[in-house]
């Protein structure tokens, strides 16, 4: 037995010298680590994609409360890039608190440009709304946030019109603007996004009742289909209210674990990992998939568009 193992060891020794490839040139440690990490990642084919990836659909990602500059934000950003390679979303909506803490030039770099550099390099556009930790003056002027110097604005993508609001300061001028813009919009899908949630089962903040009393009549009257908010550092999908679907996604950087005080309004809640969402919209359906920083699909579903929007989300999970 001992003799056989000696022979085996000798054979391995010969093989290792005889057939080994020439050593690779030395690479910087960071580059090697990065290459090893990317090799360790599953290929994009292994991704769990729940979107139909239909022809001519509009695809985008959603992040909220992202701008910490922490390791977890980078982790979410890496997952987003993996999914982008497969799903080919070409823009991201940001639900506020895009940059926490200071707003020095280095903060813009470390809390936005560096985490999302792969997405930015691939030509993905970001559309920001303002949270209470943002600098409204600086960020609205920052071109990569696509706010065009405004605190609130709208933009169109295919059959969708997006309405980005500033929920920090919902003054009469902004209320008039959103009412008129929604009324005049002929888009098949109307999606609004802003920071403070109108409905929430989170314990940390809860819903903004005064904001709700001003916005929900307009959303109902002018047929908003979906509303995305952040602020609460969790993921929550609520039962539609007056045919409007409400999502909270405030955990793409920050996280408040075990934050829920669930009620009947809650359709799905998740508060144990950071998340982002990918969305695909066809002429008559909206499909969503919420993914954790560790690549786990934590919610997915779709909703049909109706003339009087009845966003009956069907949970697939």
């Amino acid at each position, binding site marked *: 037995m001992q003799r056989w193992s000696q022979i085996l060891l000798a054979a391995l020794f010969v093989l290792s010298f005889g057939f080994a490839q020439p050593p690779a040139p030395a690479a910087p440690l960071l580059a090697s680590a990065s290459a090893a990490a990317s090799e360790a990642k599953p290929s994009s084919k292994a991704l769990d994609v729940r979107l139909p990836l239909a022809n001519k659909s509009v695809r985008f990602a959603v992040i909220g409360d992202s701008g910490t500059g922490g390791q977890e934000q980078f982790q979410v950003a890496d997952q987003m890039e993996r999914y982008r390679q497969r799903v080919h979303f070409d823009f991201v909506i940001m639900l506020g608190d895009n940059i926490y803490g200071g707003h020095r030039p280095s903060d813009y770099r470390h809390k936005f440009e560096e985490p999302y550099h792969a997405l930015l390099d691939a030509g993905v556009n970001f559309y920001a709304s303002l949270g209470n930790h943002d600098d409204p003056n600086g960020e609205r002027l920052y071109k990569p946030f696509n706010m065009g110097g405004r605190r609130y604005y709208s933009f169109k993508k295919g059959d969708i019109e997006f309405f980005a609001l500033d929920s920090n300061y919902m003054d009469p001028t902004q209320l008039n603007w959103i009412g008129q813009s929604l009324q005049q919009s002929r888009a098949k899908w109307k999606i609004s996004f802003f920071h403070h949630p109108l409905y929430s089962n989170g314990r940390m903040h809860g819903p903004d009742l*005064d904001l709700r009393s001003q916005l929900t009549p307009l959303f109902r009257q002018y047929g908003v289909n979906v509303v995305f908010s952040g602020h609460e550092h969790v993921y929550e999908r609520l039962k539609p209210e007056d045919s409007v679907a409400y999502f909270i996604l405030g955990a793409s950087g920050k996280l408040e674990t075990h934050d829920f005080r669930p009620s009947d309004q809650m359709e799905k809640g998740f508060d144990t990992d950071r998340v982002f969402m990918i969305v695909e919209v066809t002429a008559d359906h909206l499909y969503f998939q919420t993914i954790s920083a560790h690549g786990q699909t934590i919610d997915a579903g779709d909703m049909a568009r109706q003339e009087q929007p009845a966003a009956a989300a069907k949970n697939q999970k």
Partner: protein
Amino acid sequence: MRALKIPVLLLQLMLLVTASPASSSSQTNTGNEKDTQLIKDFQDLVNKYLEFRKNEAGSSPRPTNSPDKIADTQQQLAAKLQDKRQDANQGDIFQPEIAAYFRRQIAATLATKHGKKIRASLKHAEPVHGMALHVNQVYPQGVPLQSTPPTLLLNLPPLPKELEYRIVGHNLVLYDSVPDVVVDFIPEAIPPETN
């Protein structure tokens, strides 16, 4: 096409009438000429300030890709304004009678059926406590902005674009968003909650 335009315009007009702060203010102040005059005085002072800031310090810069440029421009605007308004004091715009009007207006709004919702929104908005306020100070970096409840804003005199009412703790701040500077404030403008 013309037939479609008329109802749209009518609806727009209705929206403006129902949502404009002037209408809610005027309802509250019907027959109160003194309050109307105070609002006018306040708006004159605000417009005078804005004209001064634009002439002496500058206007809002254009969007840019460079965070350095944003920071530099903002710092230069604030520094120029602080230099030119060295003698500005708390109460220059919120003069005693105007401040008293605002206190009455805020208290009256909080006493309506909307008061509970407004209070809830104030609590919901990560209230900023313990921040010492000074006229001309740049809003400190890293301190979150407390959102201002929309129903409260509907009941305060409208402001020109670029100027905002901000709540800091229980204080009402007149904030210039372009140089990021506190223009004036009313201490303890939000009355304490009584059971």
